[in-house]
């Protein structure tokens, strides 16, 4: 299986050996001696350690704070490619928001029979408590991270939607910062659209999402589960960049269905909460009673329309892997448009035909747990041993509805700096889509790279690294704001 390479044009290049978006970069790269790259890599390591950009790894003893490996070779996307992607991303997120609004109100899509009702209403992530709750702008997923993979020049697929509390945007920002410090001269040779205004765009989005009854400049706070959360670094970083308070559950108090922060100078009203806390832990009065990190009464204040939670409560039902196969139908149903971004063809194992096919083709397929994430609990058929496949087969037969299966995609590869020099490694891409009064997509995202040769698993918990993602500038200014 030969993968599409982001840089190497191969035989399709019409005489050009390097794909167009990479040409300026490649010319620059050819002038950089190998030992300079090695030195820069060591510098990058120091830089990230000093900044304290770490993440927590589960299932390992000892020191759980690790650096995500950063690769020096950027992933480059042409302006034209980006615009196409961006249109598709916005369309998809509009549909996801329409879907969430619908299933928590009229449920027309279920009545129209476009999605099996029990997939939604029996979904653990579906929260009946959200039924008929009016929320500002009917926006549920203000911040969405859509995982995209590429298999060919024009073939982009959505691998997964993240509509709850997507993380990783701090890497988009810090990776760019690191690249600019390590290789200032390359930015003179290649025109890269900046990403540094993401925190501003996010803050603007959050302010625009304030409850309608908020008539002053809205106060925004970032709610974190605390220092032990794997993404705590990102919470600190974003709060700092936006200039808002980073609060924990105990810093907030609800009085008369209004939310306040406990400040040195007294209580201060909060209008919008960018929460990085899962639904279940938000409010011990409404959800898990044992939550020590939530805010008692928060959900009541939310229902009363006195505070906006971003993302909204109950968005998980839209990014669940069992609902994923129906997202293209959502686009058609709510927007009356054909989807611009395709799903990966997906076998839904609750369907007998799909199950039969999957069990017959396990060595070729990727099988995922419907509720799993982070690359845990999945089978990559072509890379699995016979024993692993048989073990997974038993799990599937025991509970088919818990799984979906997809063909093993030849994810595109991108040149990557590894021990043996620069070699192709598989990558994916997570751009971030913001929805406030308008939709915004900052030109960039998180590119994850599977550092092991041949590996298709890009998750940081499974030996993945990250790259800086460059969207090239052209003459049209919309590339920066992502508003169109």
């Amino acid at each position, binding site marked *: 299986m030969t993968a599409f390479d982001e840089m190497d044009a191969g035989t399709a290049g019409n005489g050009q050996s390097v794909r167009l978006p990479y040409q300026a970069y490649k010319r620059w790269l050819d002038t950089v001696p190998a030992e300079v790259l090695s030195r820069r890599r060591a510098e990058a390591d120091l830089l990230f350690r000093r900044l*304290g950009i770490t993440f927590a790894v589960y299932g390992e003893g000892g020191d759980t704070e690790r650096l995500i490996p950063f690769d020096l070779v950027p992933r480059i996307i042409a302006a034209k490619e980006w615009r196409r992607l961006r249109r598709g991303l916005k369309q998809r997120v509009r549909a996801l928001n329409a879907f969430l609004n619908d299933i928590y109100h009229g449920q027309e899509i279920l009545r129209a029979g476009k999605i099996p009702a029990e997939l939604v209403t029996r979904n653990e992530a579906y929260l009946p408590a959200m039924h008929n709750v009016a929320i500002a702008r009917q926006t549920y997923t203000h911040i969405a991270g859509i995982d995209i993979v590429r298999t060919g020049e024009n073939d982009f697929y959505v691998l997964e939607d993240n509509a709850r509390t997507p993380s990783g945007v701090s890497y988009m920002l810090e990776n760019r910062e690191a690249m600019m410090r390590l290789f200032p001269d390359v930015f003179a040779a290649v025109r890269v659209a900046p990403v540094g205004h993401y925190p501003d765009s996010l803050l603007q989005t959050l302010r625009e999402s304030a409850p309608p009854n908020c008539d002053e400049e809205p106060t925004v706070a970032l709610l974190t589960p605390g220092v032990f959360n794997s993404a705590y670094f990102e919470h*600190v970083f974003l*709060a700092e960049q936006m200039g808002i308070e980073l609060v*924990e559950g105990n810093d907030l108090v609800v009085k008369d269905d209004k939310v306040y922060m406990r*400040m*040195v*100078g*007294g209580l201060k009203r909060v209008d919008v909460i960018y929460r990085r806390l899962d639904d279940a832990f938000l409010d011990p009065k409404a959800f898990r009673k044992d939550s020590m990190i939530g805010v008692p009464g928060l959900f009541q204040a939310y229902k009363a329309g006195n505070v906006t939670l971003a993302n909204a409560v109950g968005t998980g039902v839209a990014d669940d892997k069992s609902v994923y196969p129906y997202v293209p139908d959502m686009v058609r149903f709510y927007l009356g448009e054909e989807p611009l971004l395709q799903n990966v063809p997906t076998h839904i194992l609750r369907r007998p035909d799909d199950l039969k096919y999957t069990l017959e083709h396990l060595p070729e397929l990727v099988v995922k747990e419907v509720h799993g994430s982070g690359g845990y609990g999945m089978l990559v058929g072509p890379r699995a041993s016979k024993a692993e496949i048989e073990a997974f087969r038993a799990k599937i037969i025991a509970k088919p509805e818990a799984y979906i299966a997809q063909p093993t995609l030849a994810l595109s590869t991108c040149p990557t700096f590894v021990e043996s020099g620069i070699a192709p490694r598989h990558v994916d891409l997570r751009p971030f889509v913001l929805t406030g009064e308008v939709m915004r997509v900052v030109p960039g995202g998180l590119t994850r790279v599977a550092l092991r040769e041949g590996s298709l698993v890009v998750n940081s918990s499974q030996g993945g690294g990250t790259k800086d993602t460059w969207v090239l500038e052209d003459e049209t200014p919309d590339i920066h704001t992502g508003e169109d």
Partner: protein
Amino acid sequence: MLSRAADNLYWMMRYTERAENMARILDVAHRMALQGNVGQERGGPWGPALIIAGCEQAFALHGGPSSPRNVIDFLAFNPDNPSSILACLKAARENARAMRAQITSEAWQSINAAWLEMRGLSHTSVESDGYSIFFDWVRERSHLFRGVAEGTMPRGDAYNFMRLGTLLERADSTARILDVKYHILLPSVAEVGGAVDYYQWAALLRSVSSFRIYRQIYRDVIKPTRVAELLVLRADMPRSLHACFAEIVEIMQELREGYRRNYLSVRMAESMLMKLRYGNIDDIFARGLHEYLTEMVDANIELGAQLARDFMQVA
């Protein structure tokens, strides 16, 4: 700033100061113990060390013989004694860790390094290297952390609450050291002026870095009233109650200006400062130094509680 942040920063500095003061107390006790007969008067220096540290009861409950080594172990290395140097440095570092975003990276690295080094020490290794080296190290680490914070932190709420933590803890410690020592050092007027007396008062002054200052200011033999005056009423002596409260009041008045509220804690601090500013050492002795210091310690505790209610535990 968030109340929780103010609380963390305040306690980060209180614990740092507490670790330093514990090292001072132990250092003096250790020196006195080394002075043979002089140090062994009235049961030796270890009982008073426990009393000053407020750990007398906890140590009794903890059990074990009251050997010097056991006392040092309890006050310096016992992880279950919240006042031990080990526990204080750990608590200071935990508070700093929760506030990594609010303090400078230099400040974080300083307290983190202190904790990592402390964690790597054992009582046995400290004992064989000599206790004094360890006590000096604790003191230096505290000085270093405070200095880094002062040299890098922007002036504002965060810095102010850090200073308040340092100053309240220091005032508390100075009052306790003076009270306990006075109690023990002066059972009867007859003993004043003896050799034993001299060494003990000198040790007291050393424990608060004031031996030379005393000489410079008074150019006189060491007299109890003057020692008390130095540690309570002198505004130019940095560990005196007066100096601590002068700065506490300055900071709290700034907070009052900023938040425009009539805080009870600010009034409490102001009235304590008035007492110190206009106090007279002979009057204090006439009424009883112990009574006076007990009042100060209690008022200081009250002030800390009210400070928390006004700023750090906003309900």
